[in-house]
């Protein structure tokens, strides 16, 4: 599980929340929630601001106490334990480094708190700084480092004492996009190498999809959906999840007798799905990148879900180009195609034909 003799936590830890909730006055920040994080798991709390993800994080860290429920660390109740006794590590968005201490002293701080001998501190701090690629930076002050380097110090300070759980509160939020992607890779590598259980908070869905074993998508103070990145992306269970993660075409329709879904006079063919009975109103989703777009007389026979329409807008967003089509049956459908030069993109007002396979039609719910 861990390949680092100095820093590796020999045992990864689990954390479980049982019916945990939090009220601030009469406002419910978090509805009663059950959540368990497995040993060595990378779990991301994702959601818009005010969704309750930070409340959940603060409850686990012990910064605030829950209104109801219990928090179990390896089965032991830590609900009322003060933060300093929980043995949890935290990485902050604004780094929260001690500006008057050197990098070495910052990383040594949690070890000094634990009264570890000077020799052990020297070995562990050096190993931690090595891990985050800051060998030789020990004598610098935080203000002499770039944002990315400061956050590496923040991570080193966290892994150096092998905490039971590492929590990261939007750790890359203050960094620019390129650096953020690079750091995502490094945090993932550290997680793989050290095998620690990580709870990661972000509002950036790409970050969540890229890094997580599981994502806990929060909305309005409760869990909207908990699952692997694949499950959330390909099998969203509500309109909110379908709209929050990725882009989506959402249609309301009705199941008919042969498993087709009727939408605005057109018939969509969905994959076999026996959750719904005939006549049920359902919400279905097709991801724009699954919609094929071609000439008005294109697509050989055998294709399902074929619609004709007129291009109403195109937008070039780098690797992909988004094309919005108003279908002849009145539906607005968004399709994404791999970008080519300007002349290969459909023109505004052009007649096009769209199609997608029945397996790309996902019934979100009813």
């Amino acid at each position, binding site marked *: 599980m861990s390949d680092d003799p100095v820093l590796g936590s020999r045992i990864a830890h689990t954390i479980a929340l049982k019916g945990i909730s939090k009220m601030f006055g009469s406002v419910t920040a978090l509805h009663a929630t059950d959540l368990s994080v497995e040993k060595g798991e990378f779990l991301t709390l994702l959601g818009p601001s005010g969704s309750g993800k930070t409340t959940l994080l603060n409850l686990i860290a012990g910064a605030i106490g829950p209104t109801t429920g219990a928090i179990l660390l390896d089965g032991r109740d830590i609900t009322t334990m003060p*933060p300093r006794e929980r043995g949890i*590590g935290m990485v*902050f968005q*604004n780094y*929260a480094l*001690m*500006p*008057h201490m050197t990098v070495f002293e910052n990383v040594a701080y949690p070890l000094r708190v634990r009264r570890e001998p000077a020799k052990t501190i020297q070995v562990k701090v050096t190993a931690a700084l090595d891990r985050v690629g800051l060998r030789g930076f020990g004598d610098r002050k935080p203000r002499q480092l770039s944002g990315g380097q400061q956050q590496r110090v923040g991570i080193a300070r966290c892994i150096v*004492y092998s905490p039971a759980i590492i929590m990261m509160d939007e750790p890359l939020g203050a960094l620019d996009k390129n650096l953020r992607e690079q750091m995502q890779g490094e945090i993932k590598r550290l997680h793989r190498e050290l095998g620690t259980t990580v709870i990661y908070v972000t509002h950036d869905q790409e970050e969540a999809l890229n890094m997580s074993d599981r994502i806990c998508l929060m909305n309005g103070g409760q869990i909207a959906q908990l699952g692997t990145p694949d499950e959330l992306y390909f099998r969203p269970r509500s309109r909110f999840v379908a709209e929050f993660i990725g882009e989506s075409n959402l249609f309301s329709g009705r199941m008919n007798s042969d498993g087709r879904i009727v939408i605005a006079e057109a018939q969509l063919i969905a994959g076999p799905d026996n959750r719904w009975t005939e006549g049920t109103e359902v919400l279905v989703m097709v991801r724009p990148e699954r919609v094929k777009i071609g000439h008005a007389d294109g697509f050989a026979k055998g294709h399902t879900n074929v619609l004709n329409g007129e291009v109403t807008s195109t937008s070039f967003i780098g690797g992909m180009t988004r094309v919005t089509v108003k279908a002849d049956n009145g539906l607005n459908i968004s399709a994404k195609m791999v970008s080519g030069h300007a002349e290969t993109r459909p023109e505004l007002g052009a007649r096009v034909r769209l199609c997608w396979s029945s397996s790309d039609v996902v019934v979100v719910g009813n």
Partner: protein
Amino acid sequence: MSPAVLIAVAIVLPPLLRIIYTSVHGPALSLTSYAEVVKSNLFRETLRTTFIIAGSASVLSLLLGFIVALHLARQPAQRRTALMVLVLLPFWTSILVKCFAFTIILGRDGIINSLLSWIFDTRIQLPLVLNRIGTLVGMTNYLIPLIVLPVLASLLAIDSTIYRAASIMGAKPARIFWTVTVPMSLPGVFAGLLSIFVMSLGTFIIPALLGGRRDQMLSNLVDFYNRQVLDWAKASSISIVLFGIAAAFIIPLILWRRRKA
């Protein structure tokens, strides 16, 4: 130069030049009065008293003011503003009024002694005024608002997530205080301490009204030569020496602040 500097110079410079002129213009134009001042035992002892009183009053004010600032820093903003008014209230009160108030509170039959007498049912007359205790009480009362402000500013500048981080890493409140709060507030503490020390070097009314014979400071000596001895050259030269001492402390502070900015 900005208009403010021009006005300050216009108001401060002429009287200062006048005092310098008086200090060297005795029977003849010479530095005799400076030489006599430096040689005088009275001056030397008063200088020592001045440093001791200014130093101990500043340190005492810092200790008490730090506690006040720490408490203020931990309050929600609205409550803090209300409490700030309480801190500043004595600052807006005339120092003469405060000194007379202290003679009533600390006097031989003052409020404190009366209260103690009543509690112990015997006549108690602790000497709390017209001595070093009275002087330090008056000085501390005068200086605390002046030290609370810079210390509070530096405490509020500490990012609260640093406290959270230290606590999550396992540090207890006492360790957080000594490893985060104290070192990070040090710049404000240092600047505040130096400025109240310099301010207290020139105190006149407090030792005059609340101090005894052994608590007289350089300003009181200036007053003595001015009104009792009528040796204006000596009075002026002591003023200039005091001015020089104050400048010697305040100029490094100004330079340090400028470098930091």
